């Protein structure tokens, strides 16, 4: 094979290989095939949920992709863009973390985790406005009325 052809083939193959890993991998895929991905650089995308737990210069950020959540070990300097974490009253920021996946992390007591090298914000979180559910409110009053009727009949029976 001539040198330019070999180089072009190599570059094409290399780019394809990188692009494969550049695709975000789901939590299910990572957990079910943990041995396969162990020690490899992966892209993992999801919503930041719960607490951001700072431990010195690093922090644990739990990221849920809709099925499972995985812990991301991340330098706090990379967390500046994260404003919202998911809870009942808020939707967390969406992030894509690129880093080394560990099936049983030797640094963290065997946790299945990702040590992030970089993160990219993919979606903005927000506060959720809770709207009063009118049907539920009406049901509360209806059932209250029924309790009142039973109570009155109980009093009448007692007399």
């Amino acid at each position, binding site marked *: 094979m001539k040198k330019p052809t070999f180089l072009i083939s190599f570059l094409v193959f290399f780019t394809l290989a990188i692009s494969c890993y550049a695709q975000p991998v789901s939590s299910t895929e990572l957990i*079910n095939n943990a041995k396969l991905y162990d020690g490899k650089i992966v892209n993992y995308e999801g919503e930041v949920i719960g607490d951001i737990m700072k431990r010195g210069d690093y922090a644990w950020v739990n990221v849920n992709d809709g099925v499972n959540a995985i812990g991301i070990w991340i330098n706090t300097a990379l967390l500046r863009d994260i404003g919202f974490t998911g809870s009942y009253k808020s939707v967390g920021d969406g992030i894509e973390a690129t880093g080394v996946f560990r099936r049983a992390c030797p640094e963290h007591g065997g946790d299945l985790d990702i040590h992030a090298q970089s993160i990219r914000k993919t979606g903005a979180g927000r506060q959720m406005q809770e709207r009063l559910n009118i049907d539920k409110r009406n049901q509360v009053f209806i059932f209250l009325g029924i309790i009142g009727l039973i109570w009155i009949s109980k009093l009448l029976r007692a007399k």
Partner: protein
Amino acid sequence: MILKPRLEDVKIIGFYLGKIILGLALTMVVPIILGLALKETNPTLDFLIGIEISFIFGLLLTTLCRTEKDLSWMQGMIVVSLSWLAAMLLGAIPLYLSGHWKSYLDACFEAMSGFATTGLTLVQDLDHLSYTHNLWRHLITFIGGQGIAIVALSLFVKGASGAFRMYVGEARDERLLPNVVNTARFIWLISFVYLILGTLSLGIAGISIGMRPGNAFFHGACIFMAGFDTAGFAPQTQNMLYYHSLIFELVTIVIMLVGALNFNFHYQLWIGNRKEVFKNIESRAFFISIMLTFLIAAISLNQLGVYPQALALFRKGFFQLVSGHTTTGYATIYAKQFITEWGDLGLVALICAMGLGGCACSTAGGIKMLRIGIIFKALLEDIKKIILPERAIVVQKFHHIKEIFLEDKQVRGALLITLAYLVLYGFGTLVGMFYGYPFLESLFESTSAAANVGFSCGITDVNMPSFLKVTYIFQMWAGRLEFMSVFTLLGFFVAILRGKR
């Protein structure tokens, strides 16, 4: 000849069932207060609807079935078994209304799992569940762990003999104090003291690992309730893996072990008798069993090279083993990792630990250590009889609060309940296999449900067949009540259908 139950029987059962439902309704006040404090409007409405429906049923039953009579053994057992079903149906209402459970059956599954202190879950999008609903999930484990009838005993029931019958119906046959109502109150006292200590410990641990203070104490209370009551629910999807913390795991191990100990131990410690912990047949059996099953699991994990470091083996291997043996079900690994990484030997060790369970008269499930100890002593006695000369008189004793001579009656009782558990484990396994799940996975999930553990290897899922969900609900219920009250209820229905007047 089977006698058809009289209307009087039905009225007495209905009246006491109504009282228990009223007691349960009152417990919904706790999440309502939290919902109001946190301004979670719709979740508060869910619980207002739940409490109102519960009050309606409770008031109807106590009004229509009003009686002054005390419970007989049969009636007490039936009240207990029905009250657990009522708790499931009513406790599921606010859960279902939240929209985080796909069907009412799923919400019932969750409620039974909570009350029976199992911890298997079908919740959707747990990370966005309100604090109000999350508190309820954990509170029902606290209520169920102590016993639903004990709630009523502490609040409403006056008759001592009827109270004792309900107490026994909930798989508790040891009185800590001469009066069963005082025993029930003492169990609550112990539980509340531990609740305060456990919440403080976990809350401080939570703050030290970077959680917001409010969240740390909320999680602390939830993790304590589901840990002490060996349930295994957690406020986040990742269960214990959410915290990524050795300190949090260590505190939780202590809480799980404390919860799996006999309430009689706690009472003995309370009155200063610390030696009991070292002399008692249950604590000895529990220690030996944990060590043996962990040894087998560790050999398997080591052979497969799953956790090369000692710390990882402790945090993953030992934690899961203790969690399974105490029938808690807290996990620091993902469900599928049991199947893909632990190997058959490791899984068998964990299944054995789950099946054996914690101590009698505790919040734990499974066969129980007292029965295992008694069976082992009986085996020793039989071996001695074979070895020693025929004229030798062999007497076997064991220590459980006091020195007790081993009798055939105790051995028979222990063996019967053990057999019933094994049949229950097998039944769920068969149903799982019927739906195409592999043997070991079916056995794992079935044992987890029937021994009220809560570990899942992935079968428990919102998409699993409905009949399998019902099977696991039945297993959780029968396993928690240790069969007698469930058998009595089945017998009662047979008597209604086939009994003679």
